[in-house]
């Protein structure tokens, strides 16, 4: 779909350039005095003198301009027809908005799903790398680890599958594996809600561990995402 849009844009751009080029060829050069005056190279009086001669030059260029305009009109008509045809082609190929209410349903497309998962894992690799690269702040780390442990109080499902808690300077990484998956499903939202004050933003990576289980890694951050400027 993007290719089709690109092809459309490229063809219109190249045709437009053609139109512009042919128009430029037919266009009469402006009188020398005007060009010089506009470039600021002549004194006002000299520029006035140039203007006296200008009608003569325009007069001689008039047929060329008219034929150029006619050519432009013809090419505009061709372009309109071509753009109309391309629009039709884009619409037929399902080329509505890529995002938004009319986007194609890719939920049952295994290729699209695999691609989405690949992109997701790339994102998660970046999140993990950011966490590993985050400076260590011992004071924040100790304080926030205690807060996380406090939020875990009474959360039996999470406690039984907890593998590690590691806090740096603005992010904590909590790894969970095994345990009762159904109970974990119930407890995880409560855990995140309990940490609203100190770690309001959570990115989650859930991957199958190859042994029939799922490993869940939570990146809990004290930094709140900022919405796009035009939103809200």
């Amino acid at each position, binding site marked *: 779909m993007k290719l089709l849009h690109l092809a459309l844009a490229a063809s219109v751009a190249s045709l437009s350039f053609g139109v512009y080029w042919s128009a430029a060829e037919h266009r009469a050069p402006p009188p020398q005095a005007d060009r010089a005056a506009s470039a600021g190279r002549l004194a006002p009086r000299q520029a006035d003198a140039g203007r006296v001669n200008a009608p003569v030059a325009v007069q001689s260029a008039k047929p060329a301009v008219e034929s150029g305009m006619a050519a432009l009109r013809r090419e505009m008509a061709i372009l309109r027809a071509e753009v109309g045809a391309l629009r039709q082609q884009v619409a037929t190929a399902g080329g509505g908005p890529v995002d938004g*209410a009319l986007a194609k349903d890719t939920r049952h497309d295994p290729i699209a799903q695999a691609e989405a998962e690949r992109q997701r894992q790339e994102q998660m690799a970046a999140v993990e790398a950011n966490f590993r690269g985050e400076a260590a702040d011992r004071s924040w780390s100790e304080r926030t680890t205690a807060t996380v442990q406090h939020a875990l109080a009474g959360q039996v499902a999470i406690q039984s599958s907890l593998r590690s808690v590691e806090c740096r300077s603005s992010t904590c990484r909590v790894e969970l594996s095994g345990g009762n998956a159904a109970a974990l499903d119930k407890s995880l939202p409560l855990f995140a809600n309990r940490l609203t004050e100190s770690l309001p*933003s959570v990115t989650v990576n859930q991957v199958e561990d190859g042994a029939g289980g799922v490993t869940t890694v939570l990146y809990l951050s004290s930094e709140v995402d900022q919405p796009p400027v035009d939103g809200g």
Partner: protein
Amino acid sequence: MKTLTTCTLAPAFGLLIALGFTPTAQAATVTNHSGTICKNYNDYEATKIDFLARGTQNSAAYATQVICPLTRAANSSAGATAYVDIYHYGYQTTSCTLYSYTNLGTLLGSASQSWSGSGARELSIYLGSGKSAAWSDYSVLCTIPGSTNGIVMGVDLYEY
């Protein structure tokens, strides 16, 4: 080079505009929900969650959670903001978390906000693009005050 580029592209874009061809603009969508969509998160509290015409409240003596399912009007993966309208009788605290799960049930992420105070307030909870997917499902979980001291009046979803 710059002049050539300008000469080439300027008429092209001019022509595109003249022909009414503009790139597809992605429109944001807003979906408003009454707070009465929120219901008990814990099965044993079904009788503790009470409904008003203007929202949902908690009649238990303690703070507890309600879960609010959100209807999506678009399938953008650019993220969303949930606006939760709450009301407190006296000084109370409400904490709300917006979750995003894929259509396959995988948790992508969450974002939270809380407020302590009295009267009406709107929480604005933004879930970034990395925590959202085109077909992910959103829900909001709020811990609301007990003794009917707090009401969730509405939850509105703004999708980018």
